[in-house]
């Protein structure tokens, strides 16, 4: 997370005041787009804002939205992990929330779609995505190894993501939640 805030070069720059309302709005929209229940979205949004506030007290934030989305994602991962560890409750009276996008994207069906799409991808693109996503290598490092420019590496990743997104759509796994 440190990358999203600067701890240096602040002296000459006044801190841009965080627009809490806009950040909260964007966060809620972001979490609802990931199809969380409104309760959970609100919980995570609030916890995220509280954490941003802590960061804002000691560091200049270069992108409040980037920081917000990263914190929210991390909280979401923690939540999903906790939730899957708990067995479903036995009472029939329970009204369970619809599966979140993250759960849908973690399913066997999604795995099959990803695998098919990856196997059809040009080898180089798959290699770039693998190094970037799984090995967390920087675009520069990947570029050096594969004799590509950083820009070309970025483009491969963008294309790979769009390919995967389209493959999902084609298989009827709708990410938007309203058949869009």
């Amino acid at each position: 997370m440190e990358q999203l805030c600067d701890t240096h070069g602040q002296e000459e720059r006044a801190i841009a005041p965080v627009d809490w309302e806009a950040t909260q709005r964007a966060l809620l929209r972001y979490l609802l787009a990931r199809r969380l229940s409104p309760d959970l979205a609100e919980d995570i949004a609030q916890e995220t804002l509280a954490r941003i506030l802590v960061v804002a007290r000691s560091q200049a934030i270069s992108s409040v939205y980037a920081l917000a989305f990263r914190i929210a994602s991390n909280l979401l991962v923690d939540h999903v992990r906790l939730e899957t560890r708990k067995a479903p409750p036995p009472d029939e009276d329970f009204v369970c929330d619809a599966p979140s996008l993250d759960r849908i994207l973690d399913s066997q069906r999604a795995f099959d779609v990803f695998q098919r799409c990856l196997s059809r991808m040009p080898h180089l693109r798959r290699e770039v995505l693998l190094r970037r996503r799984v090995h967390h290598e920087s675009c520069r490092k990947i570029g050096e190894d594969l004799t590509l420019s950083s820009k070309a590496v970025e483009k491969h990743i963008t294309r790979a993501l769009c390919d995967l997104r389209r493959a999902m759509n084609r298989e009827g796994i709708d990410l938007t939640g309203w058949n869009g």
Partner: protein
Amino acid sequence: MMAQGKAEIEQQAAGWVEWIHGHVHDTETAARFDRWIEADPRHVDAFAHMSALWEAGALTRALATCMARNDNEGAEPPARSETQDQPESTDREQTPRAARPPRPGRLANLTFRPKTWARAVAGLAAALVLMLAYPALHDHFFEDVDYATRIGQSRLVALQDGTRIRLGGATRLHVRITPWSRHVTMARGLAFFDVAHERTRTFAVSAGETRVQVLGTAFDVELLDDDAQQVRVYRGRVRVGHAGNSWTLPAGSGLFVSGQLAKRLTGIEGQGPDWMQGWFDAQDTPLAQLLERINRTSPVPVMLAHPELGELRISGRLRLSSTQDAIDVICASQGLRHYRKGGAIVLAR
């Protein structure tokens, strides 16, 4: 900007997702990202979908399996169909990857490097300047207050926003008000909330694993123990979340949760809970929980001779404001006796 096509937005979102997970974030690009997010709400949606895709567990697994397959391919002659895309260095790269030493962890960053330390010192100085410049920042954003009562004590608290909380005996809770939220965390005990209605700021109460979110107004929350909580609604509606599930409770209903078990309560009547007037309606309530309640108001601690007596179920209306009355009713209904021992009342067979 609004004329932007869906495909174009998706492509931009993918680019930003790649960037946000990157190693370097220069301020200029960061500002551009914020502008992009603010420009169109569809950008947030597309970014959220792409992020979910990037973080998908199934994608990691799928990539891992194709990595395994590629490693096998490395042992075979190069595949004919893919030579076009494949730079020669790729195959050489495949095998040593597994043998590569693990990437340096975060600890590596702590080794002494003059430049890093200079930056850290500069950062600290800047933070200090900030705190001097905005001394009221903390007070303006937060109201952090603890409220507690002793055994047998009851206390009415009026919050800044107009909400009133009645604390029962032996109760402790923490109130935290921020510009965007109103949040009470109960550490123990029970409390009745009469919440001032606000359109933008939600009011939430956390008690153990249970979270109550207010849509309407009057309810009480009881933290029976670490694992069991009870919520009863007297006016309006509340939303209760527990262990990943949620329920909307209308006035006149309630919910008892314990671990994975949830039970709906019905017939919650009146303006507020009986305990505020010193009464308690036991409905198949374990004796241990009943004693927990009694001990919140009783001047003399009440104990059990054997812990298993705590499993006994009690039903009926008890006057908790008089410990002796309540104990007489319990003993009569369960065939128990009671005696005094070292300043406490002990219940026994």
